[in-house]
């Protein structure tokens, strides 16, 4: 019999709550309160997340964000700034000591990205892992991933781009001046793709949930069992949302 992990799908959470949920599961899992967990989610309103080591003011045009009602939040994972619009975001939370998780960080990126690649394959999108933390399809980036390890627990989250509006992306992500901006937009247009671009049709979140879930089951030889956040996790989520992710002190920390 396969090992059973928990599977969560949460839609409609804002940026602060999304980051709070991932951190709450990390804490609960580190205390042995919940099994390894895979979560799929989206962002409402749309939002930018920045890497833990990035400076918010260096990366994000806050005025433009306000204009478009786009939220922003600092992640607890490293990596770069991401504009979360039409995508499926995943997180996996699992003990560092789990036999399916390589001790070496780079190896574990590759392993977890393997689940995403299998999922993409299930929907007809061919993906390959590109170290450090990207998945490419047709030579272009379709997924970005970021991992942290805290309390002997691995949290990796990442995106699967369903559709991408590069112009909008670059109105909110900060680039030094117009000249470079033009160059970057054309560069990024050539470097980024989406499920829609590859399959040549519109694809929505719920359409790919089952296939992406199967990707994790295939990669890790487990069964993902639909579950809910526990009371403790909900309480931790509220705490982290209120005292951390929605706070200026956190988001403007660097």
């Amino acid at each position, binding site marked *: 019999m396969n090992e059973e992990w928990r599977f969560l799908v949460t839609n409609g959470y804002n940026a602060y709550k999304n980051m709070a949920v991932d951190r709450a599961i990390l804490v609960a899992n580190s205390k042995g309160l919940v099994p390894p967990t895979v979560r799929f989610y989206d962002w409402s309103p749309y939002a930018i997340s920045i*890497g*833990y*080591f*990035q*400076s918010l003011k*260096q990366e994000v045009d806050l005025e433009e964000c306000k204009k478009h009602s786009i939220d922003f939040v600092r992640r*607890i*994972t*490293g*990596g*770069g*700034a991401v504009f979360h619009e039409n995508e499926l975001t995943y997180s996996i939370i699992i003990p560092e000591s789990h036999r399916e998780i390589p001790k070496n*960080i*780079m190896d574990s990126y590759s392993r977890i990205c393997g689940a995403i690649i299998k999922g993409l394959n299930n929907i007809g999108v061919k993906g390959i892992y590109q170290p*450090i*933390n990207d998945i490419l399809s047709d030579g272009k980036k379709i997924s970005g991933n*970021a*991992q*942290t*390890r*805290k309390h002997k627990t691995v949290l990796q989250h990442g995106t699967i781009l369903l559709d991408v509006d590069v112009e909008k992306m670059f109105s909110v992500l900060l680039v030094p001046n117009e000249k470079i901006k033009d160059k970057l937009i054309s560069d990024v247009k050539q470097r980024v793709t989406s499920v829609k671009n590859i399959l040549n049709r519109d694809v929505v979140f719920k359409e790919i949930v089952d296939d992406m879930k199967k990707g994790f089951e295939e990669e890790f030889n487990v069964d993902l069992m639909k579950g809910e956040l526990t009371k403790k996790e909900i309480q931790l989520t509220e705490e982290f949302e209120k005292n951390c992710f929605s706070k200026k002190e956190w988001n403007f920390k*660097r």
Partner: protein
Amino acid sequence: MRSNSVYKIPNGKLVKINLEYDKNKKKIINISINGDFFAYPEEAIEVLEEKLIDKKLVENELIKKIEDIISKNNFEFIGLNSNGLAKGIMMCVK
């Protein structure tokens, strides 16, 4: 003096340095290291910033100092390394 630099580490990530330094003594007064790299544990960068204060702005010495801090504290960097960091810092001075 205040200065900043943006440096793409070969095969690595983008590191952005904000440096405040003493031009005459060629020493770091204050430094902030930002970027899209990964560092474990997450306090690593803050520790590094703290320990680089008062250090001499000489590339080789900086590399050695940074390597020292990394190994003493068991830090792990991905997309970031001592050479790249020292280079980013020295770019602020030149």
